[in-house]
C-alpha cells in the first residue's frame, strides 16, 4: 500500500496454482468462475444473499494462516489468498456433501422433469461415489403438492437449499413459503390453505437446483435434451431478457436471462407463462373478412369469415385507392418490433401520406414526457444513497422486474424511496417515505416537496409528512420514476409534478409506458408529428424525403381526435395495428362508435379482441416468438427479439404485411428483412447513430439510446388548482392488476383463472363510515353515470379514495370517467343496492 489514495480494486490470488487478478472483495466462488474454475454449489445464487448452508462449495483456502476448509460462497477474496479447489481434502469434503444430499433424495431421475439439467444429477455423475452406502429408509413426504395454481412442490426431492424461500422473502417480499419443522424433518411448505400467491412464483421453479419445484405448464412436456433455445427479449416495457425454449416447433418454456442491466434473471408469472397464449387454439391463423368467405370477400356481410391474403388485402387496397390521406388513420403498433413499427410508419407517413398515426391508446404519458426528459437507466437509479421518487402506480402489479430491482435497491443498496403513489404498494414497506396524494393533487404535493414551502396540508398530505419527505430531496442524486398511475387522473397534474421536480439540480427521470414497445413506437415515428429516429415532421422531412415520397404536409390528430374523426364518419380506412381501443381506450363508447363509423377497419392482430371482432378485415400477425427484430425498453435500451418457432397458419410478421400493402399500392418499401429496416433507419436516425444491426446481439444488456432533448419536454405553464374532495364523495383511482382481462392473460391456460372479479376497494375507516357489509353491491355514481359493484375492504387505499382495477370481470370503472376532468369524484350509495 505505497499510495493510500490510489484505490486498490484488484487483488491477485492463486487459484489451483494459477495466479489470477480479480476484483477486490469479490466472492470467491464468483472469482473462481470468472477465472474459469467452476465450483459446485446449490444454495449460492448471485442475485440473493448468501446463506452458506448446502456446504457444497467448500474448498481449501489459505489466507496466510494455514489452509482451512471454507465455503467459497461465503468468502471474499483477499490479496495473496491461495485456493485449492482440486485438493484431495476438497474433493473428499465435496464428495461427502454430495453423498449426504443424495441420502434422502429419490433416485427418480428418469421421470423427473429436471433430469438432464439437474446440478445434483450432474455433480453425482461427475464426482459422486458410484454406489449408495445408504441402506436405510429415505425420508418420505406426500408426492407433488400444488403450492399455487402453477407450481408443484415435491418435498422428497428438495435439498433444502433455501433458494425458493429466500426468493419469496427477500427478492419479492412474499414470505408465503417457509422452512417448516426442524433438522432432518425440515420441509418447505406453505401455511395450510394459504397458497404461495405470488406474482413471481415461476422464478422459484427456475432457480430450484433440483426437480422439487415444477411448473404446471412444463411438467412432463419435454426432456431438457430435446429442447432448443434462443436468447431473446420479452416485449414488455422493461424489455426483460429471456431464453425461449422449444421442442418440435412448440415453445415449452420461457426462462429469465440474467442481464445485469435489466431483469437479473427474474420474470413475472404473467410474462413467464404467457407463451401459452401464442400457441393457443384462439390464435388467428388466416385472414378474416366480413361477409362472403374464402376468395369471395365482400364488405357488408354479417360475420367474420376466413379468407385468403389476396382476398383480404384487396379489400384493404381498394379502400386506399385514391383516398384522401386525411381520411386514413393508424392506431396502435406498441406491441410490434422496432422494425415492424418502422415499416408501418413508412407505409402510413411515407406512402399514404397521413400523419394520423398514434401508438398511444389514450393511457400513456404524452410523447414529450416520454422523450423529452433527461432519462436514467435502472442501474443508475439503484446506486447507493440515491433518492428515488415514485410517481407511479403499484410497480409490483405492472412492472414486475423493476419492482424487484427497486426493492433490492432499497433493502440492500441503501437507496431511499420516496413513494407518492395513489395507494400503498408492494414497495411501501421498504420505502423511506410512503405518501398517497389524492388523485389530481400530485402536482401541488410535488411543488411543496421540492420547494420546501410547506403548507399545513396539501392533497391529503400533512405538512409534517411533506417536510420529512423534503429532506430526502436534498440529495444531489434524485431520480423520478413516473407513469400514468391511474386513468382516473389526467396527465396535467403529472406534468405539473414533473415541472416541479425539474427545479431540482440534476434530477433525472424514468418515465414508464403501459404497452411493451411504446418507446420503440415513438422512436419509429408512430406518433403525430414524429418521424423515425426522433426527427420531427417539420424538421425531419428533409431527412426522409428522398425515400419517403409522400410525406404528410401537416401534423396529424392524436388518438382521441382520430377516434372522434372516425366516429364522425371522417375516416375511410382505419388501421388497428395490434390495438384494441374498445378494451383499452378510456372512453369505451367513443372507441366503439369510431370503429362502427369508420369506412374500412383493418385489424392486424393475433387474436379476435373486442375491436378485432368489429373490424372489416383482419390480418393475422406473427408474435414475438415468431419474428426477428428488436425492442426498445423504457430506458431506451435496444435488445434483440429472435424467432424461435414458426407462426401459425399463414400469419406473418407485421413488417411484411406493411410492405405488401405498399407493394399492392405500387410502392416498394425496400424492406425484405428486418435488417433492411435497421440499415435504413439508422442511416437517417438522429439518435441511433451508426448502431449496426448485429451490434447488440451478443450483449445481454443490449444497446442504450441515450440522446434526449431533441423532442423537448413541455413544462406546464399554469398549475392546476387544488380541489379537495368533499366529505360525501370519494376520489376515484383506477388501477391495473397483473392479471386482468387482457388478451394474453386470458389466452394463457395457466393465467386465465388468476384474474379476479371487479370490486370497489376502500379502507376500513371509510367502510365503517358507510355502514355497509363487505361483499354487498353498491351503486357508485359520478355525475350522471353509474355502475354497481361489490365492496371490499383494502387498507392500502387511503381515506377518501376508492380503488377499482380496470379490465376485470364485472363493473367497468371507465364508465365513471368524465371527459375533461383532471380527477373523478364518486359517491357511494349504500342504500341503493343494485
Amino acid at each position: 500500500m505505497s499510495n493510500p489514495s490510489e484505490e486498490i480494486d484488484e487483488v491477485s490470488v492463486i487459484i489451483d496454482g494459477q495466479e489470477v487478478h480479480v476484483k477486490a472483495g469479490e466472492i470467491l466462488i464468483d472469482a473462481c468462475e470468472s477465472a474459469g474454475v467452476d465450483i459446485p454449489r446449490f444454495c449460492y445464487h448471485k442475485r440473493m444473499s448468501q446463506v452458506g448452508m448446502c456446504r457444497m462449495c467448500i474448498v481449501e483456502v489459505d489466507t496466510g494462516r494455514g489452509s482451512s476448509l471454507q465455503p467459497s460462497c461465503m468468502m471474499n477474496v483477499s490479496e495473496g489468498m491461495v485456493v485449492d479447489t482440486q485438493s484431495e481434502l476438497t474433493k473428499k469434503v465435496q464428495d461427502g456433501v454430495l453423498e449426504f444430499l443424495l441420502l434422502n433424495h429419490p433416485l427418480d431421475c428418469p421421470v423427473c422433469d429436471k433430469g438432464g439439467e439437474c446440478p445434483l444429477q450432474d455433480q453425482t455423475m461427475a464426482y459422486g461415489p458410484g454406489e449408495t452406502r445408504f441402506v436405510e429408509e429415505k425420508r418420505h413426504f406426500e408426492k407433488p403438492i400444488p403450492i399455487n395454481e402453477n407450481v408443484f412442490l415435491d418435498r422428497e426431492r428438495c435439498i433444502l437449499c433455501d433458494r425458493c424461500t429466500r426468493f419469496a422473502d427477500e427478492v419479492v417480499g412474499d414470505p408465503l413459503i417457509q422452512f417448516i419443522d426442524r433438522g432432518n424433518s425440515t420441509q418447505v411448505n406453505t401455511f395450510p390453505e394459504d397458497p404461495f400467491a405470488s406474482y413471481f412464483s415461476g422464478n422459484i421453479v427456475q432457480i430450484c437446483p433440483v426437480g422439487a419445484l415444477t411448473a404446471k405448464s412444463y411438467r412432463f412436456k419435454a426432456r431438457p435434451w430435446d429442447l432448443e433455445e434462443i436468447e431473446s427479449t420479452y416485449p414488455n416495457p422493461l424489455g426483460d431478457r429471456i431464453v425461449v425454449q422449444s421442442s418440435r416447433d412448440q415453445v415449452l418454456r420461457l426462462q429469465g436471462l440474467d442481464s445485469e442491466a435489466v431483469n437479473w434473471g427474474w420474470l413475472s408469472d404473467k410474462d413467464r407463462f404467457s407463451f401459452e397464449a401464442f400457441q393457443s387454439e384462439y390464435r388467428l391463423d388466416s385472414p378474416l373478412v366480413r361477409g362472403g368467405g374464402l376468395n369471395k370477400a365482400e364488405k357488408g356481410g354479417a360475420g367474420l369469415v376466413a379468407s385468403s391474403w389476396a382476398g383480404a388485402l384487396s379489400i384493404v387496397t381498394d379502400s386506399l385507392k385514391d383516398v384522401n390521406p386525411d381520411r386514413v388513420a393508424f392506431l396502435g403498433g406498441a406491441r410490434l418490433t422496432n422494425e415492424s413499427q418502422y415499416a408501418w410508419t413508412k407505409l402510413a407517413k411515407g406512402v399514404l401520406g397521413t400523419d394520423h398515426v398514434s401508438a398511444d391508446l389514450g393511457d400513456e404519458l404524452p410523447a414529450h414526457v416520454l422523450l423529452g426528459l433527461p432519462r436514467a437507466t435502472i442501474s443508475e437509479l439503484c446506486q447507493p444513497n440515491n433518492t428515488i421518487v415514485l410517481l407511479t402506480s403499484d410497480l409490483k402489479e405492472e412492472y414486475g422486474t423493476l419492482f424487484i430491482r427497486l426493492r433490492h435497491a432499497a433493502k440492500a443498496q441503501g437507496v431511499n424511496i420516496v413513494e407518492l403513489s395513489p395507494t400503498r404498494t408492494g414497495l411501501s414497506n421498504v420505502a423511506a417515505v410512503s405518501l398517497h396524494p389524492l388523485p389530481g393533487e400530485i402536482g401541488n404535493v410535488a411543488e411543496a416537496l421540492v420547494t420546501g414551502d410547506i403548507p399545513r396540508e396539501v392533497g391529503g398530505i400533512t405538512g409534517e409528512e411533506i417536510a420529512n419527505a423534503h429532506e430526502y430531496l436534498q440529495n444531489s442524486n434524485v431520480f423520478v420514476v413516473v407513469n400514468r398511475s391511474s386513468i382516473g387522473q389526467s396527465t396535467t397534474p403529472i406534468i405539473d409534478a414533473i415541472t416541479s421536480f425539474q427545479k431540482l439540480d440534476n434530477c433525472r427521470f424514468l418515465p414508464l409506458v403501459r404497452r411493451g414497445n411504446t418507446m420503440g413506437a415513438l422512436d419509429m415515428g408512430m406518433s403525430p408529428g414524429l418521424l423515425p429516429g426522433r426527427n420531427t415532421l417539420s424538421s425531419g422531412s428533409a431527412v426522409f424525403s428522398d425515400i419517403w415520397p409522400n410525406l404528410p404536409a401537416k401534423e396529424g390528430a392524436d388518438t382521441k381526435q382520430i377516434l372522434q374523426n372516425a366516429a364522425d364518419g371522417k375516416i375511410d380506412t382505419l388501421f388497428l395495428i395490434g390495438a384494441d381501443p374498445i378494451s383499452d381506450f378510456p372512453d369505451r363508447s367513443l372507441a366503439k362508435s369510431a370503429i362502427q363509423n369508420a369506412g374500412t377497419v383493418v385489424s392486424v392482430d393475433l387474436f379476435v379482441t373486442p375491436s378485432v371482432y368489429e373490424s372489416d378485415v383482419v390480418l393475422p400477425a406473427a408474435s414475438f416468438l415468431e419474428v426477428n427484430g428488436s425492442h426498445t425498453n423504457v430506458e431506451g435500451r435496444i435488445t434483440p427479439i429472435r424467432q424461435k418457432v414458426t407462426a401459425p397458419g399463414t400469419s406473418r410478421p407485421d413488417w411484411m404485411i406493411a410492405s405488401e400493402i405498399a407493394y399492392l399500392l405500387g410502392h416498394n418499401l425496400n424492406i425484405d428483412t428486418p435488417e433492411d429496416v435497421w440499415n435504413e433507419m439508422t442511416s437517417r436516425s438522429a439518435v441511433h447513430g451508426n448502431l449496426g444491426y448485429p451490434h447488440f446481439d451478443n450483449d445481454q444488456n443490449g444497446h442504450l439510446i441515450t440522446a434526449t432533448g431533441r423532442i423537448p419536454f413541455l413544462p406546464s405553464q399554469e398549475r392546476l388548482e387544488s380541489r379537495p374532495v368533499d366529505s360525501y364523495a370519494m376520489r376515484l383511482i383506477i388501477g391495473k392488476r397483473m392479471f386482468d382481462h387482457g388478451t394474453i392473460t386470458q389466452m394463457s391456460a395457466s393465467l386465465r383463472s388468476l384474474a379476479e372479479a371487479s370490486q370497489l376497494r376502500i379502507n376500513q375507516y371509510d367502510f365503517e363510515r358507510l355502514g355497509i357489509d363487505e361483499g354487498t353491491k353498491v351503486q357508485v355514481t359520478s355525475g350522471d353515470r353509474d355502475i354497481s359493484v361489490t365492496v371490499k375492504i383494502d387498507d392500502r387505499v387511503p381515506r377518501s379514495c376508492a380503488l377499482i382495477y380496470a379490465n376485470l370481470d364485472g363493473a367497468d370503472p371507465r364508465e365513471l370517467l368524465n371527459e375533461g376532468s383532471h380527477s373523478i369524484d364518486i359517491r357511494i350509495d349504500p342504500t341503493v343496492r343494485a
Partner: protein
Amino acid sequence: MTIPLITTSRWGIEDGHTLEGYLRTGGYQGLHRALEMSPEEVHEEVKQASLLGRGGAGFPAGIKWGFLPPDVWPRYLVVNGDESEPGTYKDRLLIERDPHQLIEGCVITCYALGLSQCFLYVRGEMAHGQERVAQALNEAYIKGYVGKNILGTEFSVDVILHWGAGAYIVGEETALIESLEGNRGMPRLKPPYFPASIGLYGKPTIVNNVETLSNIPWIVEHGGEAFAKIGAEQSTGTRIFAVSGHVKTPGVFEVEFGTTTFRDLIMGEQYAGGIRDGNSLKAFIPGGASAPWFYEEHLDIPLEKSVVDNAGSMLGSGAIVVMDDTTDIVKACHNVVRFFSRESCGKCTPCREGTNWLEKILDRILNGYGRLEDIDLLLDVCDNISPGISWPPKQTTICPLGPSAVSPIASALERYRSEFEAYISLSVDATPVVLTGGAHE
C-alpha cells in the same frame, strides 16, 4: 480449602431467591459499588478478574466486552439461559435459587458497557425458573434495581424475561439471537465471529451465559484482583460442575478452578462420592455431550481449561457424566449421537443428513442388523462431517453441533471397538436393506 462460594452462596438459603433474602445476604452491593464507579472502571474490574465464559467456549468475558465497536448504538445484552447440553445442570439452579444475583449481574453489565436493553432468554422448559425470575424482576422493578433511573441515577435499563420453546441449538449464541428475533433458531454465518459487532437486530450485542453473569456482582463488589486470586492463573475463580451418572452422590458443586481434579470431584466424599455399587470407572464425559470422553488415566487432570484442552477434551459446560463398567458403550454412544441428530437445526447438509445417518447406522447395529462394514462407514461419515476426526474438530458446518456428534463415536470406537463388533457378530441378518427411493407417482 477456604475459598468463598461465589455463585452458589445462597443455594442453601430458604428465601435466597426473594429480594428480602437477597438483600439480607449482601445482595445488590455490587450494583451500588458499580454506580459509584465509572462504566469503564467496572469493565476494567471484569478484565482484571480474567473471568472465563461459562457457557462452553470459555472465552474471557472482559475481552469479549471489548469487541463492542465504539459509537454504534443501541447495544444489547442477551443472557444465555438456554442450558440444554446433556449433563449440564447449573444455570437452572442459578436461575431458580438466586435470580437476583443474575439480574444484578445483568444490570451491572449494562451499566459498564452502555447496553440499553437486556433480554434474559430462559429455556422454555424451565417453568419454575421463569416464575422465579419473573418474581424477582417484579420485585426489583418496584424497588428500583431495574428499569428507569436505577437507584435514583440517570442509568436506565429494562431487563426483559424471554421464554425459549425447546431447541438445544438455540443455545448457540447466534441461533439464540435469531430465536429472540422471532425466527427459527438457526445459527448465523460467521464471520462476524462475535455478535459483539453485529448481533440482535443487526446491532452490537453481548451474549453471556447465566453463570458468567452471576459472577459479576461478586467481582465488582470484591474487585477483579480478589477474583483472579482464586483458581488457576488462566482459569480464575470457581466453577459449578454437575456430576451425574453412575456415582454414589450425584450433585452440583461449586469448586475452585485448577486446584480441584476430576478425581476429587468424582471420587471425593464431599462431592460425588465415588462410583456406585463398588463398580469401576469405564469412562466419563468431562464437559457435556460434545466433549470427547476421558478415562481412568485422566482422573488426575485438574479442572483447568488449558490443561483439559491439551489433554484432548474440554471442560465445556461443566457437565461431568460418569459411566461405570456396566455401561453398554454402544448404547451410550447411540444415545449421545441421537441427541445431536434430533437437535440439528437442519441448516448445514453434513449435520442435517450426517448426524441422522450416524444415528440410523447405530440404531441398526443395536437392533441386530449391523454389518461389519458399518464400523468403517461410521468413521467415514464422521470424517465427512468433521474431516480428520480431530480435536478440536474441523468443521464442514456453520456451528459445532454437527461435528459434536463425532466425538462420542470416535471416543467409543477408539477404546471399545470390540463392543460394536460384538453386536455385529450377533446380527440376525446382515442385509436388512430397505432400499427405497424411486418414483412413487
